[in-house]
């Protein structure tokens, strides 16, 4: 049987499903192909659902802010509760030397129009008594940063897309693309052939495999992250979304972190603590490269726990109930996502490389990619994320 679609999305994660939803909303007939037996099997199901605004810098900052605006009313729009909670975000430091950086960070953010406040350690502990004595200073953002349930974001988008006529083919692998005169005409999977003029690669860390079928080098590799989940404890009063000031540094340059003398730093460990509304804490984050190996490593887990206790000493008495690892699809050239049409073959769109920000950026990615496909223009500039920036690789 031959199927026909206006667009085929490869990848059933949060990004793929978001693109499918916004395309279907514009009236397109969409088919989503997922090689695993269910949705949310990759990175979308292996993160902690934190959407911070003040952790970004331009040009991603604008996208993140727009994305969070979309998240605000998303549950209502798609008829599916994604557990959006405007929890605010506290970036804090346990190292005196970082004080000037924190000040500068807050200044830059305020200049970009993000309402952040620099708060000294003592005042922080007054507002949130569970913070540790080591915490020296924090940058707090209250209005935009939020937590969502990443599974529900993924399923919610899929649910809404399906209601609008999108089809989901699970356990289906892309095998080949058929190209006629430089334009995609169909996609051949291990089951059938789908006639389409648009293919979207939204396969996250697995995107390079798809790119290879088209002789394209998509410069993305899987960066492993490990997360501990604790038993539920009473909710924090003020901040439930707390991150370490070294987080952004390690995120931006994990190679430099690798050379660090601090053994925890070497493993890319930075405190990233989220408490969701059930009371469970998720404790991240680590960064290393281990191919597609989802094994957790004891050493990293120990450093994660130690780092977390520095920020929230009360966690030392809380049991860990689960540990898992997942992959950030990291663009190893510049760390920025790839949200772009490709010139050759025409009809190919790439939406991957979101690194650790895939959930934050899922709604806006879906919206922009749907505009790119149906109208050939986007409501926000995405020139910084074009695929042609890798032209010397392709």
């Amino acid at each position, binding site marked *: 049987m031959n199927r026909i679609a206006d667009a085929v999305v490869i990848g059933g994660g949060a990004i793929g499903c978001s693109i499918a939803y916004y395309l279907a909303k514009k009236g397109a007939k969409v088919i989503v192909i997922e090689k695993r037996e269910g949705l949310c099997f990759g990175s979308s199901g292996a993160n902690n659902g934190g959407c911070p605004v003040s952790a970004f810098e331009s040009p991603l900052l604008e996208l993140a802010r727009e994305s969070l605006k979309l998240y605000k009313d998303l549950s209502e729009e798609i008829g599916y509760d994604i557990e959006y909670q405007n929890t605010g975000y506290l970036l804090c430091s346990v190292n005196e030397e970082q004080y000037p950086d924190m000040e500068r960070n807050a200044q830059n953010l305020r200049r970009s129009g993000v309402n952040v406040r620099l708060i000294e350690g003592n005042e922080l502990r007054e507002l949130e008594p569970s913070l540790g004595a080591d915490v020296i200073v924090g940058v707090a953002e209250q209005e935009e940063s939020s937590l969502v349930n990443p599974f529900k974001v993924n399923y919610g988008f899929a649910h809404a897309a399906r209601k609008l006529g999108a089809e989901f083919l699970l356990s289906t692998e892309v095998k080949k693309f058929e190209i006629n005169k430089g334009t995609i005409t169909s996609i051949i999977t291990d089951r059938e052939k789908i006639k389409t003029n648009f293919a979207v690669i939204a396969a996250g860390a697995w995107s390079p495999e798809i790119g290879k079928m088209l002789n394209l080098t998509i410069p993305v590799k899987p960066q492993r992250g490990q997360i501990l989940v604790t*038993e*539920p*404890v*009473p909710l924090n009063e003020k901040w439930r979304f707390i991150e370490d000031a070294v987080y952004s540094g390690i995120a931006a340059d994990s190679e430099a972190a690798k050379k660090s003398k601090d053994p925890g730093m070497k493993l890319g460990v930075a405190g990233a603590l989220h408490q969701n509304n*059930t*009371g469970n804490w998720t404790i991240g984050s680590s960064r290393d490269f281990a191919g597609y190996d989802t094994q957790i490593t004891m050493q990293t887990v120990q450093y994660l726990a130690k780092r977390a206790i520095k920020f929230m000493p009360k966690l030392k008495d809380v*049991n860990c109930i689960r540990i898992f690892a997942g992959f950030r699809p990291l663009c190893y050239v510049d760390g920025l996502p790839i949200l772009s049409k490709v010139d050759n073959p025409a009809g190919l769109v790439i939406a991957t490389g979101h690194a650790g920000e895939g959930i934050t950026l899922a709604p806006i990615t879906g919206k922009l990619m749907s505009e790119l496909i149906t109208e050939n223009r986007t409501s926000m500039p995405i020139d910084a994320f074009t695929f042609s920036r890798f032209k010397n690789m392709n």
Partner: protein
Amino acid sequence: MATVNRRTRAGVARGKCFEIEVDGERILAYEGETIAAALLAAGKRVARNTKKKEPRGIYCGIGVCFECRMIVDGKSNTRVCQTLATPNCKVHTQFDL
């Protein structure tokens, strides 16, 4: 101090006697006893309340069923049947989240 004492007396040699604190009330315990044993001896059967607010007590007594979890010295989800009583340890009934 709770007055109930359900321990058998005949033929049992016990260690040193001390007090522990359960939800603010002092009860007796002997060296080598688990907190669960001390609770039962004092006639206390509820260790925790489930999410649905139903009481749960000591069930298997050998650390398998996880029914007798309480807050011991600030540590939640501690199985009292596997935790020895120590002088003045503070035990609280747990209300599951």
